[in-house]
């Protein structure tokens, strides 16, 4: 099972892919920035401050998506006894953490002109901060423990605890009275965002996904070379 996850075969693809992904990322980001900063309209209430949404929302989405993927992959690693799942999780974490920080900082910058404060201990913001702490614990666990089995167990335990926070982040704006506005984009029902703002948001999300893919590929290749370095030591 999972023969396609053989390191030799994977490295053949992942070692060549980053340069193409980087090129695509620069192209999509350029289009996204033009749309977000120049072409998209201002909001009738928030005026131009709404443009912060084009970096804040995709960052929050991707950080949540990456953490969910890390949890799923870590659990799969245990179920199928495949270490490569852990390697993929480890390589995804740095970009997830950075996107989490970007969401928090850009959220604070957006909060000042719209709410009149940089920070509020409301449910959405606090739960996002907690997610950042889980990311940090996950990354630190890989640095602290040398023993492979131990680090697999501890990092998976951290992700299982952290994943409980993900639905809390998602539904915090519905469950509690918060400063944060409810979701404007719904997959199952009609979105309340106009297409002139939805289009740049989708482009910027695509650019951010490409960036996280680029970092993942580079990090994954680094981890594979690290394994090979250990292999050379044993020769």
């Amino acid at each position, binding site marked *: 099972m999972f023969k396609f996850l053989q*390191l*030799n075969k994977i*490295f*053949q693809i992942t*070692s060549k892919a980053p340069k193409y992904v980087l090129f695509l990322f620069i192209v999509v980001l350029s289009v996204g*920035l033009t749309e*977000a*900063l*120049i072409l998209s309209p*201002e909001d009738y209430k928030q*005026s*131009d*401050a709404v*443009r*912060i949404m084009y*970096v*804040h929302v995709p*960052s929050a989405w991707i950080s949540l998506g990456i953490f969910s993927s890390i949890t799923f992959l870590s659990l799969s690693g245990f179920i199928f006894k495949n270490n490569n799942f852990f390697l993929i999780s480890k390589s995804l974490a*740095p*970009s997830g953490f*950075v996107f989490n*920080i*970007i969401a928090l*900082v*850009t959220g604070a*910058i*957006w909060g*000042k*002109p719209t709410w009149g404060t940089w920070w509020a201990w409301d449910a959405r913001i606090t739960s996002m901060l907690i997610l950042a702490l889980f990311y940090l614990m996950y990354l630190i666990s890989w640095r602290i423990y040398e023993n492979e089995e131990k680090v697999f167990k501890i990092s998976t335990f951290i992700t299982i605890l952290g994943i409980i926070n993900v639905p809390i982040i998602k539904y915090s704006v519905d469950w509690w009275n918060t400063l944060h506005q409810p979701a404007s984009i719904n997959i199952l029902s009609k979105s309340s965002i106009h297409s002139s703002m939805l289009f740049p948001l989708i482009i910027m999300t695509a650019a951010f996904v490409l*960036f996280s893919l*680029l*970092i993942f590929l*580079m*990090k994954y*290749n*680094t981890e*594979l*070379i*690290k394994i*090979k*370095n250990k*292999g*050379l*030591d044993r*020769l």
Partner: protein
Amino acid sequence: MINELLFMNGYGVYVLSAFSFTLLSFTALYLVTKIQFIKEQNKFVAKYGSLNSEKAISAKSQRINKEILANVTKN
């Protein structure tokens, strides 16, 4: 036109600082990851170079090692 773009009805400072922070974070993460990658690659080349001919042949028989070495020469 450019003044209008930068001023953004008084929100320019907030909007541009949010975008700048995002792009700076991207650049920093990219550079850190790239440096780590190059460091490991150089370590691999140094270790490979220190192998005797028999061990080098054995190491080169693995396709992934060949790929790593090929990428180093390309870079």
